[in-house]
């Protein structure tokens, strides 16, 4: 499967950490590259609002109204457990469902060292026990290893949200052993344990590269039950349906990957796709947005509200702005701190964070559907 070209990323790092011409599995291009109207958050929200949604608890299609009706007159944070940093939109892949609209062309949005340092200071003040790194491919940010080193030295649990294929690129092949040494949890995207769905969503050749990367992680001790070498896989539906039962899927995935490829992992998390960005584009192209929104509303589950990730997570973007989650971040819904203040991460204040009201729009129905969906997987079993 592999040839020399596959193994090389012709990476040109600019002064700001941007890089260009990254080779990797491709199934589409970014909305921004195509100048699609859906590249704008306003257009995405307009499309969601245009769906006639006279279903759900209040039959209003208003997420906050449905939450209030379910016994939550306000939606506020509980406590700050997870400090999530989106290091940038640059990625070697262009997956069809990407909510970040990442891709090789997103070279400009990359967190610089000053903002990384501001995050580190904020992490110290936050009391968060976990630092969750995402992107794009977070590994492509030139400050990635610096950041991981600093926060692991602070005793924080670090999660790298990894697309797997990046680990097969020569420049990044040292990372599995490097992660193992620092006890970094690797949370990897793999939509299906078989080839068909994985390549359909993430690009031809992704499955083979993903297996290669998983074997590299297994070889350095990941996926064998060691809490310092935790390997988590993330599945999300390859289409217009909801995530299956996480526990049931995990058993099957473990058996199938072991039997077919001698690959092991520790945990499977199952996420719903959020109706936004490139997944929203796909739903609109298929004429399935209406059906999908009704599916989410029909499955509205009030018992997921307490465990919503916006209640225990702070999400910071590459330019240091603060959000309730990575989805709100991509929709540019910045946190309104008390007094309608918008703060940069260098001015992070835990008390203000605890007091703010979480911002919601219709995409939020993705997190309350079925067993619920968060960056940590299902919310209720």
């Amino acid at each position, binding site marked *: 499967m592999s040839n020399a070209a596959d193994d090389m990323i012709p990476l040109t790092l600019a002064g700001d950490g941007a890089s260009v011409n990254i080779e990797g599995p491709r199934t589409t291009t970014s909305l921004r590259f195509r100048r699609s109207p859906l590249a704008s958050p306003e257009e995405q929200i307009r499309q969601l609002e245009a769906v006639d949604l006279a279903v759900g608890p209040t039959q209003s299609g208003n997420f906050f109204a449905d939450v209030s009706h379910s016994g939550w007159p306000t939606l506020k944070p509980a406590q700050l457990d997870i400090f999530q940093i989106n290091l940038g939109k640059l990625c070697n892949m262009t997956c069809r469902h990407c909510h970040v609209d990442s891709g090789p062309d997103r070279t400009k949005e990359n967190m610089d060292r000053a903002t990384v340092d501001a995050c580190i200071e904020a992490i110290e003040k936050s009391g968060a026990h976990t630092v969750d790194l995402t992107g794009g491919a977070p590994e492509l940010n030139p400050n990635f290893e610096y950041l991981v080193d600093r926060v692991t030295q602070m005793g924080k649990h670090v999660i790298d949200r990894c697309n797997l294929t990046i680990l097969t690129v020569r420049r990044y092949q040292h990372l599995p052993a490097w992660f193992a040494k620092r006890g970094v949890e690797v949370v990897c995207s793999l939509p299906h344990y*078989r080839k068909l769905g994985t390549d359909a969503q993430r690009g031809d050749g992704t499955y083979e590269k993903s297996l290669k990367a998983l074997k590299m992680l297994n070889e350095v001790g990941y996926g064998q039950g060691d809490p310092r070498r935790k390997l988590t896989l993330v599945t999300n*539906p390859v289409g217009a349906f909801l*995530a299956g039962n996480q526990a049931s899927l995990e058993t099957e*995935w473990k058996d199938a990957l072991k039997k077919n490829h001698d690959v092991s992992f520790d945990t499977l998390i199952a996420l719903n796709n959020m109706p936004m960005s490139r997944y929203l584009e796909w739903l609109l192209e298929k004429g399935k947005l209406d059906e999908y929104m009704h599916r989410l509303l029909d499955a509205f589950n009030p018992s997921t509200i307490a465990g919503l990730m916006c209640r225990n997570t702070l999400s910071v973007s590459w330019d240091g702005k603060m959000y309730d989650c990575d989805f709100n971040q991509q929709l540019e819904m910045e946190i309104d701190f008390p007094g309608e203040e918008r703060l940069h991460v260098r001015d992070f204040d835990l008390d203000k964070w605890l007091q703010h009201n979480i911002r919601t729009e219709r995409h939020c129905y993705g997190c309350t559907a079925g067993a619920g969906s968060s960056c940590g997987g299902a919310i209720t079993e």
Partner: protein
Amino acid sequence: MDTYYKPEHLPKFGTIAEGNKELADAFFAYYGKVFEDGALTAREKALIALAVAHTIQCPYCIDAYTSGSLEKGADLEQMTEAVHVATAIRGGASLVHGIQMLDKVKDMTM
């Protein structure tokens, strides 16, 4: 009634309780129990249901268990194999009766 099959009947399946709630409740409780993870996984049961749906040629069931199989983590290749299992059994069921024909032919002819 302009047509025998209507897609909107599937999501209304529960309204069958209007005529007899007790029997409907008993049926749906049993139905739900059947499809839980057991000695067979929920995915395996969804694939069996998909194959049976093709055998009995029930469009409601094909609709429901195409979605159901995907949601339970099956992919197109697995689902197509399930449909071929149904097809093989159906075809085989016809063909094996050919032995009855063969016996009869042998009985009746020189």
